[in-house]
């Protein structure tokens, strides 16, 4: 068989024999197996059903038997509790008058005739229903004298004893005794449908079927019987069995089995016919399809299609064939398109490569060091400028933490910055130009400017650092500052002597000078004073820039201060032939400020205003309240400042050009100093000006109430700054 199937696989075979050989044997085995299983199943089910019927009958019979025994017991109890019986326990002297009468031929209601005995508490017989009963063995009945009933059923018969209670004590006993025949009569119950048998162990107590009884007794094989057993509840020692011979139960089933096998044979025949029919029809349709397919042979045939027909499977085969034709047709067409696309991609790649090289060239040639790190600070790229600054080769640092390029304390702060940034995506340092201390490979520290910018490469967060070495610039700044400071100081000492001496001469300490000499002295004195002012201003500027100028903040009443300033500058006004006027209707204006510096600011502003005013004009100092702040303005009606100079005049050494005829002494530093002082007070000087009409310099400061006790700030300008910014 296996060999045959193998040949089927290797060589083409006809469908019909193939199917018949494959299906029929399997189907036959399957049908017979199913038939066999069904008959077993049916037998089991029949048997189970019958057993249930037997169980039902058994349940009813057992319950009827228990009821009968219950009734029997109840009847005996009724005798035991009969008041005449109880009375006779006490009424010794007269009980002979009624007790024998009561017991003569006494029977338990509904039960067969048996022996009935009445005893006292020690089992001595007081009365019996048969004169022959004289004494009984009381050993089995000890429990009865303790108040419990006694029931014994065995091959010898049935014995039932109950206590006779008097004042709740067991003072006597009623014993009922049946021989085996009487016991069987007691246990018989109606006419059972099947063989019923009551037994205890091997002893048969009652049987309704002599045939089954014989089998049960001889312990013969009873496999041909279906039987169900059950203990009688409350009478646990005895059981009942109901039985029936098997053949009577299953006769119907055997008839059904014969019929079933006939049906199987017919089914196999029908199956063969079906296979034949299916194969015949299928081959006819396939032949038709093959005929269509054979007509295809040239490329031009790709436009044609077959006509799907027949069973849905063969119809689908035709459709698939058509779909294949269509794909072939498309494949021929799209081959050209593919070639074009390949060329295009190559071009794009070339362009990308060019751009990358372009970018790399920029990075490598730029003067600033450019370093990229990942989000953990590991260096990924290091351009030539960075190499030059830090004196590392790129291979030495790539893959290492960027911290090696920093010195403390920046190195320690760095980790926190990165951590913070990763956590919050915000940072104090990112995107800001900072000055930090770098560390070269040889351990040298140097100042550098650093800008860190985050970027996303793919999904990775990275940082780009741009580094500039500012060692040189720093050095130049320091040199300049030192130079100015030294020069100014060295100049001031001789100048003071010079101004003093010239002053003395000018004011006639050496007697009256000739007119020409006096004029020259006056010029010399004026120029010396101007030089002194210049030097002082330069020193101030220098101090401010170095952050070394000291401020002493206190509560200042500005109206009074304005009066003071104006009176101090009065000589200056007279000199320029102008008038200073205070425009203020406030009783007082209290602010927190450095009094002397404020005077310096006003001096500068007023002198500037005077300088640029025409003779006879008026310069106004105005104090105005604006909400909680006070605004201080210095207003002149001079030439005004052109828009393009408005910014520049606040810078060092700037003055308007010489179109002004009265351009007298001035360093060009005054406005810068004033501006810096006001800035340190947390504000800035603003300017409004119109050419030919005059200028207004103004600033405002927060006012405080006269009695408010504001804690005094320390003297350092560095400390005051953040406080004011608040």
């Amino acid at each position, binding site marked *: 068989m296996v060999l045959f199937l193998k040949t089927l696989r290797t060589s083409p075979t006809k469908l019909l024999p193939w199917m018949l050989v494959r299906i029929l044997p399997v189907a036959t085995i399957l049908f017979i197996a199913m038939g066999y299983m069904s008959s077993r199943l049916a037998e089991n089910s029949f048997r189970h059903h019958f057993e249930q019927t037997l169980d039902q009958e058994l349940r009813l019979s057992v319950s009827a038997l228990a009821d009968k025994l219950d009734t029997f017991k109840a009847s005996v109890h009724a005798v035991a509790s009969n008041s005449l019986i*109880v009375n006779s*326990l*006490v009424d*010794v*002297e*007269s009980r002979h008058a009624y007790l024998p009468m009561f017991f003569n031929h006494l029977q338990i209601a509904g039960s067969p005739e048996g022996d009935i005995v009445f005893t006292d*508490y020690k089992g001595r017989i007081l009365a019996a229903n048969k004169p022959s009963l004289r004494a009984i063995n009381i050993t089995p009945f000890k429990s009865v004298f303790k108040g419990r009933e006694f029931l014994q059923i065995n091959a010898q018969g049935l014995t039932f004893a109950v206590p006779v209670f008097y*004042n709740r004590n067991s*003072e006597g006993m009623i014993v009922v005794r049946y021989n085996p025949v009487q016991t069987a009569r007691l246990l018989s119950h109606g006419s059972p449908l099947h063989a019923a048998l009551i037994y205890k162990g091997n002893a048969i107590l009652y049987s309704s079927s002599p045939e089954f009884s014989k089998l049960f007794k001889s312990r013969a094989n009873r496999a041909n019987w279906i039987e169900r057993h059950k203990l009688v509840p409350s009478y646990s020692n005895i059981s009942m069995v109901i039985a029936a011979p098997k053949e009577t139960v299953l006769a119907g089933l055997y008839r059904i089995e014969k019929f079933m096998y006939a049906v199987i044979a017919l089914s196999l025949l029908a199956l063969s016919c079906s296979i034949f029919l299916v194969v015949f029809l299928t081959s006819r349709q396939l032949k038709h399809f093959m005929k269509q397919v054979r007509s295809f042979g040239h490329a031009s045939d790709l436009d044609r299609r077959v006509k799907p027909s027949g069973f849905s499977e063969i119809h689908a085969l035709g459709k698939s064939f058509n779909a294949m034709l269509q794909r072939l047709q498309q494949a021929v067409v799209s081959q050209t398109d593919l070639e074009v696309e390949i060329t295009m991609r190559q071009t794009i790649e070339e362009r990308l490569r060019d751009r990358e090289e372009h970018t790399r060239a920029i990075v490598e040639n730029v003067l600033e060091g450019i370093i990229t790190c990942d989000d953990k600070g590991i260096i990924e790229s290091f351009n030539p400028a960075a190499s030059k600054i830090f004196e590392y080769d790129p291979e030495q640092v790539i893959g290492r933490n960027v911290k090696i390029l920093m010195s403390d304390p920046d190195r320690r702060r760095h980790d926190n910055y990165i951590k913070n940034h990763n956590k919050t995506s915000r940072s104090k340092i990112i995107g800001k130009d900072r000055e930090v201390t770098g560390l070269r490979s040889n351990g040298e520290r140097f100042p550098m400017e650093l800008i860190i910018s985050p970027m996303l490469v793919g999904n990775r967060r990275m940082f780009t650092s741009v580094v500039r070495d500012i060692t040189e610039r720093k050095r130049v700044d320091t040199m300049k500052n030192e130079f100015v400071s030294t020069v100014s100081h060295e100049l001031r000492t001789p100048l003071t002597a010079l101004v003093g001496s010239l002053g003395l001469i000018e004011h006639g300490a050496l007697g009256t000078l000739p007119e020409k000499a006096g004029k020259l002295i006056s010029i010399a004195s004026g120029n010396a004073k101007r030089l002194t002012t210049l030097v002082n201003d330069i020193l101030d500027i220098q101090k401010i820039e170095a952050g070394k100028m000291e401020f002493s903040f206190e509560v200042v009443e500005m109206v009074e201060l304005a009066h003071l300033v104006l009176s101090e500058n009065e000589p200056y006004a007279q000199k320029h032939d102008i008038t200073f006027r205070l425009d203020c209707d406030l009783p007082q204006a209290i602010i927190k400020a450095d009094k002397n510096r404020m005077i310096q600011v006003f001096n500068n502003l007023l002198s500037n205003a005077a300088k640029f005013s025409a003779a006879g004009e008026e310069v106004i100092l105005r104090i105005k309240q604006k909400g909680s702040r006070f605004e201080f303005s210095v207003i002149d009606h001079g030439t005004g400042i052109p828009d393009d100079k408005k910014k520049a005049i606040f810078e060092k050494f700037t003055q308007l050009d010489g179109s002004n005829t009265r351009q007298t002494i001035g360093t060009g530093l005054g406005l810068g100093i004033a501006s810096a002082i006001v800035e340190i007070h947390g504000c800035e000087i603003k300017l409004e000006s119109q050419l030919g009409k005059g200028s207004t310099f103004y600033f405002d400061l927060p006012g405080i109430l006269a009695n408010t006790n504001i804690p005094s700030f320390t003297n350092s300008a560095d400390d005051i700054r953040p406080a004011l910014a608040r």
Partner: protein
Amino acid sequence: MAKAKMTTRKTASTTRNVRACTCTLLLVLAILSTVTTQITDAKTVAAPPILIGIDAAMTGPVGQSGVAIHRGLQIAIDEINDKGGVLGRKLAVTVRDNHGVPARGIDTIHELAQNKNIVAIVGGIHSPVALAELKTIHKNAIIYLSPWAAATPLVDNGYNPNYVFRISARDQFAGAFLIKQAIARGYKRPGLLLWRTGWGRSNQKAMMAAIEKVKLHAAGVRWFNTSQADMSRDLAALKMAGADVIMLVTSAYEGFIIVNNMADLPANKRLPIIAHWGMSGGRVSSKTLRAFDKIDYSFLQTYSFFKPTNPARAQKFMRAYCIKFKACGSPASVISPVGSAHAYDLAYLLKRAIEKAGTTDRSSVRDALEQLGRYDGLVRTYNPPFTKTRHDALDVTDFRLARYGKNGAIVPLTLSKTR
């Protein structure tokens, strides 16, 4: 008291030692040694105590009667022992519970009679038991003292010599007394409701004789059985027969049923009941007490601590009772008083008889009991208590009627004058 108990146990062990296991034997030996030590300490003769058996219903509905008898006996014995005992020997009690069942009673008599230290047996409330025991009593020639059972044939038993002595009512007198009381109250047709026992029949005889004597007719006689659950049909039958009073002879269990049956009738159908004393041997339930309140119920008593015949002795008795049994305060605290009072006097009479005989030989003591002189007892003055022909110590003069008062106290009634 404690000593008496020990002695009791000792005797019991002697009779049972055959059955006892080794452990029990050891225990008994230990107890024996203790008892011996105590006796030596008390400087008495090493002789075993003289025993008085109790053969009574100690449990069940009338168990209280047995307890009362035991208490009365115990008080007397303790008094006697305190004064040195009898013939130099202590007195002690050994108790048997016969459940009120004759068969047990007979077996008890037989068992106690075998014990040579037992000189007399004190019976219980049940006449039927006592009557059934007569044959065994005389066969064993043991003295039987009845403090309660009242059946006439118990004493008039036809045995010679007669070993039965009684301080209690005698039905012959009691039946006549109860009938006379009924008639004195103006009733004409008494209906008899009797317990189907020898005691019931003894009363039937006495009552019928008394009725005939005054030329009246009983409405009828109905008998009920022991443990009968309902007697309302008997009551109805007597009422139908024209009874105007019920003469009742019953034990406690059945008696309480009858009282409740009567109380359950509508007020106009209830009949007065004049009863023998059987019920006073039992404890009255609160339900039955309520039933007593509804009906006219009076019953026989021979003694009452409320109206004592000998107040001095009664006082002494109640003091001892109070101390021993923690029941104090009122005469009502002495339960089933006739049982205790009769047993108390019996103990003293027995003591005198033993002293008179000078021996514990039962026959000699029996003879001595018939020859005692005057004795001022608790219940009455006995002059003499017994004679050769009279073994009943009480007579009709001792009889009185009582009823149940509050909390079951037995309260004596003032007697109506009889013809």
